[in-house]
């Protein structure tokens, strides 16, 4: 190893991280070179002084600040993840509506009432909870005998048609009470 290479290793001789073979070569070099020994003394003094310096880090206050920032980040992410819930509910509704239409089409080809279509019942406007699941919505509709005939519109409003013999006020009361699914319901 050249003198220059040895000189380059002196700082790591001082911090004691050299491999044994390199360390042995440095020791040999130091034994015969006063300048290099003076260099080592200087580097050792620098190291000791740096290590003795106390650093006042943020500590527990910094941790509190970090935890607050972490909580805020999580909230933002959580809110960003919520977008799929109403989308999922809307997609489920589309499936239900399409299913209904297909059944109606099939029935239309097979059974045609002589008297024409039965008249529909009253129509309601409902706004659904964004957390509502497809299963809960289906159960709510079945309970009052309603089907979705339109929606969601730009404001997220759905139109439900009750069966002709349904009790309008009772249906509104039942749907209003189902806060898991329905946020708001009114007559059209």
């Amino acid at each position, binding site marked *: 190893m050249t003198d220059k290479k040895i000189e380059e290793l002196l700082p790591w001789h001082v911090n004691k*991280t050299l491999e044994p073979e390199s360390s042995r070569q440095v020791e040999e070099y130091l034994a015969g070179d006063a300048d290099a020994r003076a260099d080592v003394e*200087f580097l050792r003094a620098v190291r000791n*002084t740096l290590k003795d310096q106390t650093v006042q880090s943020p500590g527990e206050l910094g941790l509190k600040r*970090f*935890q607050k920032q972490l909580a805020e980040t999580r909230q933002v992410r959580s809110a960003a993840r919520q977008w799929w819930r109403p989308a999922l509910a809307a997609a489920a509704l589309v499936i239900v509506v399409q299913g209904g239409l297909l059944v109606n089409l099939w029935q239309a080809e097979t059974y045609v009432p002589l008297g024409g279509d039965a008249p529909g019942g009253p129509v309601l406007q409902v706004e659904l909870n964004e957390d509502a699941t497809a299963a809960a919505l289906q159960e709510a509709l079945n309970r009052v005998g309603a089907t979705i005939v339109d929606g969601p519109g730009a404001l997220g409003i759905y139109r439900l048609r009750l069966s002709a013999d349904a009790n309008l006020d009772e249906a509104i009361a039942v749907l209003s009470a189902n806060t898991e699914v329905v946020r708001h319901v009114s007559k059209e």
Partner: protein
Amino acid sequence: MDSAERLLERIASGSSEAMADFYRQFESKVYAFALRKLNDPHGSADIVNEVMMAVWQGAGGFQANAKVSTWLLGITHNKVIDRIRKNVRNESEELSETMPDTDRTAAVDLVARAQDAERLSECMERLSQAHREVVHLAFFEDLTYGEIAEIVGCPEGTVKTRMLHAKQNLKRCLSRGL
């Protein structure tokens, strides 16, 4: 307390408690390194936050064969570099890399001056950021030149050369007035 590696595993699975333990274990190391590079306590505290957030988001990417402190100081290095790039600093007082070494007759005095914490700090601050970080990692963290090269993202030969220049510049700065 869990090992640093185990803490990272728990952080990767979303444990806030493990994150707090990790923070307590490593924040002073991150802060000291950032402070050495930036010379700015407030900026360094911000760096601690940014680094810990990176740990929270990237703990799952930690390679088990790596050393946690090397990985962490590498993140710190990159965060500081980003900050410096955003706030380009005037380093006109930075000492030249090609200045001559001091006379060996002053060697004893130089050792005495290197033991003066205030004077050494002044001279450390006048080193370039690249020189300062190598001195810090070698003498404050006691890392090998290979680990330092990994942290700062340069060849081992460059680390050794930077250290050599840093030593010469420290000597020159400390010898003023001798």
